[in-house]
């Protein structure tokens, strides 16, 4: 089970959170068992949450840790969520609080965004939750359409146990040239997502 429980962590007041989620027209198909309902919702929305947390975490390695804290906090508050159709934006705002707490732990770190920016990013991410879902769907097909060499190189560059510095040394290239290539691939995918969403019926 991916949800772990810790003691001694800072607790929030219910009033701190966006508990009364906006009603949706989606029929409530939630399982009666709250554990099962939570796991299904978490699994469904985890890619969007991961993307949002990544936007606020300059160190990609911290994303898993923050997400785990978000899952714990979301589970603890889950019984207060009336509308399961609004789980994604609700969990996004929980992530905002977790990110702010993480930020306070690393407040002296230059690679930490200011609190006001984290709040802006979170509020807008919650508002555009359906867009993030469509972006992720478009991204799947855009990655599949990349030339094989480009796709496999990007996967190697993103491998968890290898840094760009190590890769550059092994290739005899500068780190900068590898970062440029990664940026080119991301920009290519960004354009592909935009094209795909423009063409798709809304």
């Amino acid at each position: 089970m991916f949800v772990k429980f810790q003691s001694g962590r800072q607790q929030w007041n219910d009033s701190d959170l966006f508990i009364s989620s906006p009603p949706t027209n989606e029929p409530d198909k939630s399982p009666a068992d709250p554990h099962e309902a939570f796991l299904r919702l978490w699994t469904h929305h985890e890619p969007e949450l991961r993307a949002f947390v990544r936007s606020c975490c300059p160190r990609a390695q911290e994303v898993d840790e923050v997400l785990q804290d978000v899952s714990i906090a979301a589970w603890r508050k889950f019984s207060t969520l009336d509308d399961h159709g609004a789980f994604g934006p609700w969990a996004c705002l929980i992530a905002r609080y977790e990110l702010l707490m993480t930020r306070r732990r690393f407040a002296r770190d230059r690679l930490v965004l200011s609190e006001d920016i984290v709040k802006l990013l979170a509020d807008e991410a919650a508002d555009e939750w359906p867009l993030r879902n469509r972006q992720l769907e478009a991204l799947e097909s855009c990655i599949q359409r990349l030339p094989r060499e480009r796709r496999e190189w990007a996967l190697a560059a993103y491998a968890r146990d290898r840094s760009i510095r190590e890769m550059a040394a092994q290739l005899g290239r500068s780190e900068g040239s590898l970062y440029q290539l990664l940026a080119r691939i991301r920009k290519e995918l960004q354009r592909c997502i935009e094209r795909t969403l423009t063409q798709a019926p809304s």
Partner: protein
Amino acid sequence: MTEAEEKWLHRYLDGAISPEDSESLENLLRADAETRRTLRTLATIDSKWRQLAADEDVGAAPPQLYSRQYEDLG
């Protein structure tokens, strides 16, 4: 968004942004909704790659393999 501003976003996601550029990027993010939207899109792409790499466990790929792929990319 200028090319230099776009570069800040990529360097930020790579964890390789300088303190000076980081401060400039923060000012831009604070002021410009379009930059924030672009950051969220690029972060979506970045997190997807990381997830795919983790799922496929490509960490063990030998340097010769990605070296050849890098050469193919020119």
